[in-house]
C-alpha cells in the first residue's frame, strides 16, 4: 500500500500559516490516515527549533564573530612573522655551515707579512715605563722582521760568493 500524498505539496504552506485548507481538503484530511500522519510531521517540523532560534542574539553573535576574526587575523600575522624569522635563521645557519665547511685557503706571502709585522705581544712590565724610558728600551731591540721567508730566493739559491763568505765566518 502506497502513501496518499494528495495534500503533500500544500502542507508546508498551511502549517506555516500562509494558506488554509479548503473544505474538500479538510474532509479528506479527516478520513485519510496517511495524510494525518504526514500533517503531524509537517506541523511539528514547522515549529521545531523556533524557540531556540528566538533566543539567539544577532548583535552579540556578530560582535563575537568579528572579534574572533580579528584575533585570528592577528594570530596568522604573528605566525607568518615567526615562520619568516625561522626561515631566515635557517638560511643563516645553512650559510654558516657552508662557509665553515669550505677547504682552507693558503694565504700568499704578501698577505702573511703584515700579519707578522702587526703581531702584538702583551708585555705588562712595560706599561709603567715613562715615554723616554720606553724609547730607550725600544732602541735596544731589533727591528721587527718584515722580510720574506726562509725559502726566499736569496737563501734558496745562494751564489758561490755568498757561500764562501758564510763558510769563512764559520771557520773563523
Amino acid at each position, binding site marked *: 500500500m502506497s502513501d496518499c500524498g494528495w495534500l503533500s505539496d500544500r502542507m508546508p504552506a498551511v502549517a506555516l500559516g500562509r494558506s488554509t485548507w479548503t473544505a474538500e481538503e479538510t474532509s479528506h484530511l479527516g478520513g485519510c490516515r496517511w495524510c494525518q*500522519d504526514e500533517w503531524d*510531521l509537517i506541523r511539528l517540523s514547522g515549529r521545531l527549533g523556533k524557540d531556540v532560534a528566538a533566543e539567539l542574539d544577532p548583535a552579540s553573535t*556578530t560582535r563575537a564573530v568579528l572579534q574572533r576574526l580579528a584575533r585570528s587575523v592577528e594570530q596568522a600575522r604573528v605566525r607568518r612573522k615567526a615562520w619568516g624569522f625561522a626561515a631566515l635563521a635557517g638560511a643563516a645557519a645553512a650559510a654558516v655551515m657552508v662557509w665553515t665547511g669550505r677547504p682552507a685557503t693558503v694565504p700568499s706571502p704578501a698577505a702573511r707579512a703584515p700579519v707578522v709585522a702587526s703581531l702584538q705581544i702583551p708585555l705588562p712590565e712595560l706599561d709603567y715605563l715613562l715615554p723616554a724610558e720606553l724609547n730607550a728600551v725600544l732602541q735596544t731591540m731589533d727591528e721587527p722582521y718584515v722580510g720574506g721567508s726562509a725559502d726566499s730566493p736569496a737563501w734558496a739559491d745562494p751564489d758561490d760568493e755568498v757561500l764562501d763568505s758564510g763558510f769563512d765566518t764559520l771557520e773563523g
Partner: protein
Amino acid sequence: MSASTTPRSTRSTPESDPALVAAYRLGDERAAGELIGRHIGALGRFLYSSGADRDEVDDLVQETLFRAFRRLATWRGEASFRSWLFTIGHNLLRDHFRSGKGHRVLSLDDHELPGQSDPHSDLVAGEAEERIRQGLAGLPRLQREVFLLRTQEGSEYEEIAMELGTTPGAARVHYHHAVKRLKELVR
C-alpha cells in the same frame, strides 16, 4: 543562487547576499552584521533540528559563522549563502558528534522521556519532536536540507533547487524520501 549580484546603490533596498559578502570582503563590517542577522535564525533551527542540544546551539552557531567568514573567499556562489552556512554547520555538527562532545538525547527506539513533568499532550509532542530531530540527524544531507527548507521556510521546489544547486524534480524526490522516513517516527 537566491539573489542577484547587483551592486549596492541605496540603503533602503535589501542587499543581496553576494553583495553583502563582497562588501564585507572590502572591509565593511556592517555587511557581516546584516548577513548574520539574516541567517542566524535559520542556522540555529537547522542545527537544533539536526540534533544539536539546545544549550549548544548558540556556540555552534557562532563557530559556524566564524568558520564561514574566515574562509569567505572559498564561497563561489554555486549554492546560496544560507545553504553554504548549513553545509559548514552540518560538518561542524558531525565532528561535534564524532568527538563525543554532543550527545543524542533520545534513541530512535526509545519511547520514554525520563524526567518530564509536563502535561501528557506536551510530553507526546515533545517526544515526537525529539524523534523528528533524531530522524533528521540520520537523513542524508540533501534530504534534510530540502525537508527543512520546505517545512520551516516554506520554500518552493524551484527556490530550493536554486539554493542547493539541484533541480526542482530532484528536490521534490529528496523531500518525499525524507517525509516517508520521518513519518514512521511520529506515528
